[in-house]
């Protein structure tokens, strides 16, 4: 029971860190517990969470754990694969050791190659600039600014700089590079600057926070929404700083 309880605590912590919305986390974890004949109670939060695994036949037989959620980049892959694993455990009643092996294999699956993601994100910004009716110069500027700022963001994150400060610096860098469009013409610069920071918008956190709040997980939902708003404010401050600097210099 202790082993399964600890494993479930890790499972829930990984799902929270991956940005999964709370009702899915709760359903998936409870499904696994039930497959092994236990009940599970969860208290979800973004920094720490607690779980209690109970034997329904003997309530005095229970396991409780408070676990820290380690900050990690959003992973939709973990969200999908861990949810899928919960159904697999539920339907096949696999031994706990097999569940542990599959869980470890999922969380150790490597992410997409960093440079490939940087290039695709830059291409996406290029495309977004087209959608905003940007000129070819604006599109090229946005491609370059996204590529450079994306790598800067990864570097600062590796150096464990505060996340909000990382977003501010990244938005500042991206919009300053995009502002070079001011040397071509004003509309080019406007579209380029507006597009250059959009890859930093915390879409997953916003939607998860909203779903949590609507489904009654108000505390964690609001925590997520506040995080997303803080993230967006950092982004807007970086953009504001860049526009002020460019107005001052040009």
């Amino acid at each position: 029971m202790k082993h399964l309880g600890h494993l479930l605590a890790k499972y829930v912590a990984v799902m929270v860190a991956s940005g999964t919305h709370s009702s899915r986390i709760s359903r998936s974890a409870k499904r696994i517990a039930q497959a092994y004949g236990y009940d599970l109670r969860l208290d979800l939060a973004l920094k720490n969470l607690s779980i209690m695994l109970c034997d329904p036949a003997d309530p005095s037989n229970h396991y409780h754990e408070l676990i820290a959620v380690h900050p990690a980049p959003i992973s939709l892959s973990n969200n999908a694969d861990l949810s899928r694993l919960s159904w697999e455990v539920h339907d096949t009643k696999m031994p706990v050791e097999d569940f542990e092996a599959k869980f470890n294999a999922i969380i150790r699956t490597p992410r997409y190659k960093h440079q490939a993601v940087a290039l695709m994100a830059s291409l996406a910004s290029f495309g977004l600039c087209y959608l905003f009716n940007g000129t070819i110069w604006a599109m090229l500027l946005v491609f370059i600014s996204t590529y450079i700022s994306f790598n800067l963001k990864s570097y600062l994150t590796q150096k464990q700089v505060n996340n909000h400060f990382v977003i501010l610096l990244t938005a500042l860098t991206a919009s300053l590079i995009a502002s070079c469009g001011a040397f071509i013409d004003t509309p080019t610069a406007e579209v380029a600057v507006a597009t250059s920071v959009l890859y930093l918008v915390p879409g997953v956190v916003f939607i998860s926070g909203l779903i949590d709040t609507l489904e009654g997980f108000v505390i964690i939902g609001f925590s997520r929404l506040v995080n997303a708003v803080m993230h967006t404010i950092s982004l807007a401050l970086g953009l504001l700083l860049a526009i002020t600097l460019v107005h001052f210099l040009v």
Partner: protein
Amino acid sequence: MESIVFHIVSKALFASVVALGFGLISNPPRRAIWAILLTAFLGYLLRAFMMDALGLSVFSACFCAALLMGCSGLVTGKLTHTPATVIYIPSLLPMIPGMYAYKAIFAYLTFMQNIDFAEKAVYFDQFFTYLSYAVGILICLALGSIIPMFVFTKTANSLTRSKHCVNQ
């Protein structure tokens, strides 16, 4: 007529590229990539059609597009054994109201730097207008996309279940 069709389809194709590129930052599963591309294409196609061909407002177009994306997330999620959110969140990203947000920030900056009260009022009005547009579009996108999940709750909750496991 042909030029409008070309315009709408080309925008929808670019929107798919945007969804994939921004989506990769959030590490989606490989098996869901085609679903993200398709969902973004369909959603943006509807949005562009409603705005450019029918002349409807950006709010109703975004809401309907997000609704379609939510439904597409459920259908393609069933095929790929992936939660609908994993598919429709990256697909929504091309519709982020970036230009409105930028214009709101720019109007705020000009409002703060101006000392003439009459001009300040104009920039404040602009700031509030653009901010309302940006927030309104975000709300339409978020609500539109999650409504199908609440309507088809049972389907949404079992998308990741594989028939292969049930039969064992």
